[in-house]
């Protein structure tokens, strides 16, 4: 990872809310993401790790400008230093920023695989590029004539990744690219993403799988109840809880099977349940009265960032 590379994507204080109607007139807001910040540079994989329901998928949709109707967002998004306006998102989608498809359902079931990977581009160069990408990913040439339902699991994963490889996009967003895969298959998929990062692209990897993130990503952003609680190098996670900054990150580390398989009591607060203080306070071993006063700001600590008043 090159710290000095200019940032590709900067997310600063992002929030996403849903308007919702309670009863007939009372309007409420459901805050799915609050105060999320991260930076992705060219040539690195940044992993956003968090439990299900923490609002991770909304992050990908917010960056791409594909939030569902009814959602509003705020905070600053910048791509290559320039603000990401809805208009710019439309221009950059598919050209500069690409989503790595999650599952076979992201392909049209009634369309052959080849034309789908090529996108709307019908020029012969594009077909050649697609064949080259298939060859690079170890897919037989006749794969392009198949329909999605005819692909085996392994073929499907490579076809899905090939949509990201074929494009010119600098920033790749992979939202849970590995669910349901055996460890070897997941490692294979992430290996391809790492190759793409080596080619100079930036990858934002959104996952619940801390172990894979530690193995493949350069830095890790820990996500809890819609907010960033820690930004650390993957090496810190490899080093153990002493190198980590936030009590939640340490709890995640201890919950890994090889580190004791220890579960933390309690559960993540629901999005929209307003808590005045630190969101992790109810489950935190370090909690004091000060923790319930206000949500602590993100601060720099030992080369990373942490959102905790007790972290040292």
């Amino acid at each position, binding site marked *: 990872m090159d710290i000095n590379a200019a940032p590709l994507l900067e997310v600063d204080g992002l929030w996403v809310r849903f308007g919702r109607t309670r009863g007939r007139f009372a309007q409420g807001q459901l805050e799915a993401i609050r105060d999320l910040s991260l930076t992705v540079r060219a040539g690195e994989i940044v992993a956003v790790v968090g439990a299900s329901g923490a609002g991770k998928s909304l992050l990908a949709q917010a960056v791409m400008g594909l939030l569902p109707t009814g959602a509003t967002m705020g905070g600053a998004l910048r791509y290559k230093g320039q603000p990401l306006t809805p208009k710019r998102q439309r221009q950059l989608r598919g050209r500069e920023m690409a*989503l790595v498809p999650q599952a076979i359902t992201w392909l*049209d079931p009634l369309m052959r695989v080849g034309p789908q990977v090529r996108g709307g581009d019908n020029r012969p160069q594009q077909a050649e590029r697609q064949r080259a990408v298939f060859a690079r990913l170890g897919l037989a040439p006749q794969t392009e004539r198949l329909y999605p339902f*005819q692909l085996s699991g392994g073929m499907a994963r490579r076809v899905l990744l090939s949509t990201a490889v074929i494009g010119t996009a600098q920033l790749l967003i992979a939202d849970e690219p590995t669910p349901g895969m055996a460890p070897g298959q997941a490692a294979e998929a992430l290996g391809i993403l790492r190759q793409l990062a080596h080619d100079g692209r930036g990858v934002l990897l959104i996952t619940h799988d801390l172990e894979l993130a530690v193995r493949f990503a350069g830095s890790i952003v820990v996500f809890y109840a819609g907010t960033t609680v820690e930004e650390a190098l993957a090496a810190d996670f490899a080093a153990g809880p002493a190198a980590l900054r936030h009590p939640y990150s340490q709890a995640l580390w201890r919950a890994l099977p090889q580190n004791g398989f220890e579960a933390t009591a309690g559960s993540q607060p629901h999005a929209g349940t307003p808590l005045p203080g630190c969101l992790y306070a109810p489950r935190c071993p370090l909690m004091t009265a000060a923790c319930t006063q206000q949500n602590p700001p993100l601060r720099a600590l030992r080369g990373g960032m942490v959102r905790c008043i007790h972290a040292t």
Partner: protein
Amino acid sequence: MELTGAPTKAGTAKRVAWAVAKTLLRAVSLVLAATLVAFVLVSLSPVDPVQQYVLGADAVSAEQREAIADYWGLDDPPVQRYLNWLGALLRGDMGTSLLYRQPVAAVIAQRFMNTLALMLTAWVFSGLIGFALGCLMGMWQGSWADGILRRLCLALSSVPTFWLGMVFLLVFAVGLGWFPVGFSGPIGMADGDVTLWQRLHHLALPALTLCFVSFAGVALHTRQKLVDVLQTDYVLFARARGAGRWHILKRHGLRNIALPAVTLQFAAFAELFGGSILAENVFSYPGLGSAVAAAGLNSDVPLLLGITLVSTLFVFTGNLVANILTRVVDPRTRVNGA
């Protein structure tokens, strides 16, 4: 579905033969059931066919009535009568219509073309208009235009055919005088002298009525189907790759909604037939629909059973085409082996 290895030729032939045999069996049992129900219903009808036959002729004595009833076999037990009809049918004889005093086959042949012209016109236009409208509504789902059109379609599909027919008759035929009030040609003109233009002119209002009651359903169905498609992962992914609204409709929308729409259109033959009975009666249009109503009201058993037979086969064919289309067009059921 076999994914490995192509099925052998003999295996395919055997499967096709089995499918054809099953289809024929279904068609025969359906025709038997439908005609049996029609026969039971008309047997329970209080209308006396002899009374209808001699209507207006007071000088018919009781003996003569008895002779007519005997000639028609009306005194036989109902089971015997149904079996008689079935036996004659197997010999290719559909019987003679009591009402028109012509062979049933001739009455049906003559009227089927009128009905076919009417239904085909309504079928094509309601399909095209409904599909196009449904696509537009689906693409702008949630907009004010979609809201208005959706309510209009719901209202239209709740309107009874005969009522809409009468409104059209009042407005366009009686009020504005643009179209004739009924029949398939000018009154008093021999059938052979009617020009094509005159036929179309007489066809227009009943066809418009039929089209209006069915296109709304097609539009609503197409809209819902498109809305479903637009919410899929593959459309979200297409948008993430920079595809615009029209591009998505062209590339993914049409591909995924065309097949169910065409299937539904073929499966809708039954409703179309039901609608044409009402429309033909409102416009006195000489098709199968008005004939079947007349046959029922006059206890004309041979004609009623004949039309039941033909319409059942017609609807069955529509459904069969829908089934075959689904199997042949959809790659997920068509492709055998990689």
